[in-house]
């Protein structure tokens, strides 16, 4: 993945993750739709499918989801130096904000003005995430694969309604994917064998 890029590109990479991270309230998955919007839709640097692969990889490693995903995006775009710039961009905003807040956090926590702004913003974050989910869900359904749609619906019900452990869902879906691929390959082989004997 090592690619030679200009200094401006690294700055763009850094600035993208910096601004995304600065607005990622709620942590975890909120940054994923935002990154997707920036890197897949806006810059068109990464394909939709590859982005989802990167998220799956980020999810299966320990640590902070936002950091993991940005490491992967940086590495994908410009190898190790790229990963360095995206980690830096992701970590810097919370580092600065919390360091500043730690000086006067009691006042911050009790400020009605701050909590009013944050309350309004949480509705905005929900809207951004909803918009991204609609698009991603539509992309999966548009694949017209019964398998993909079923996996999506069942995983959603499992995690949202039944609170099933994310690790278990990841494991089962990966195994189901391998099994369906195996079935497809066996079918192909049988067809080939049939074709030859005929």
């Amino acid at each position, binding site marked *: *993945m090592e690619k030679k890029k200009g200094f401006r590109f690294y700055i763009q990479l850094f600035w993208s993750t910096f*601004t995304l991270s*600065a*607005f*990622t*309230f*709620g*942590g*975890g*998955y909120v940054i*994923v*739709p935002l990154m997707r919007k920036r890197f897949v839709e806006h810059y068109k640097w990464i394909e939709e499918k590859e982005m989802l*692969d990167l*998220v*799956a990889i980020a999810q*299966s*490693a*320990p*640590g*902070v989801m*936002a*950091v993991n995903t940005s*490491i992967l995006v940086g590495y994908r775009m410009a190898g*190790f130096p790229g990963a360095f710039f995206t980690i830096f961009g992701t970590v810097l905003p919370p580092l600065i*904000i*919390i*360091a500043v*807040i*730690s000086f006067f956090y009691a006042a911050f*926590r009790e400020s*009605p003005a701050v909590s009013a*702004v*944050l*309350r*309004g913003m*949480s*509705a*905005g*974050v*929900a*809207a*951004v*995430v909803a*918009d991204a*989910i609609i698009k*991603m869900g539509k992309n*999966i359904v548009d694949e017209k694969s019964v398998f993909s749609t079923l*996996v*999506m619906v069942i995983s959603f019900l499992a995690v*949202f309604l039944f609170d099933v452990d*994310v*690790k278990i869902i*990841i494991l089962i*879906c*990966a195994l*189901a*994917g391998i*099994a*369906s*691929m195996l079935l497809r390959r066996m079918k192909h082989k049988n067809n080939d064998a049939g074709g030859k004997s005929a």
Partner: protein
Amino acid sequence: MILLKLFWSFFLVGLFSFGGGYAAMPFIQEQVVELNGWLTMNEFIDIVTISQMTPGPIGINAATFVGMKVSGVLGAVIATVGCVTPSCIIVLGLAYLYYRFREIWVIRGALNGLRPAVVALIASAGLSILLTALFNGQVESWLGISLSQMDIAAAVLFAVGVFVLRKFKVNPIYVMMGTGVAGFIIYRFVIG
């Protein structure tokens, strides 16, 4: 010495917090409150609250907060570096393997299963965020919902946000800033 200890504690937090988000919370609490006594339980709850109110993942926030308290800015930086180091090593290893082996059918099959699952996980997290926003953190699941408790202003902001995003494809950051300003006006002067 204390810096080394900070680094190592948050290295462990980074290494063992699977599942993202608040899954890391019990582990941070163990390291920071119980084992090392860097924060009291109340201070720990404060940092969780602040994490909900500010951008940034809770792991990084806790690392920065504890680091600041224990030994200032240098401590904050060391603890944060400690927290992301395990991710860097493991994720870069996985990324290397992915780009090397993604054409192999077993890997392709596994990824085919994971892609729709990832969309489902994001959808579930998104719905929890929506519930928190619409009910001001009062309801955690569909079971406890009663429409009379719903924050109408938040529902309107949400609906307008989705409409603007889908219809005009604006930058999401403007939507968040807009709802922030609207929230300030509504909750500070109109309702609150």
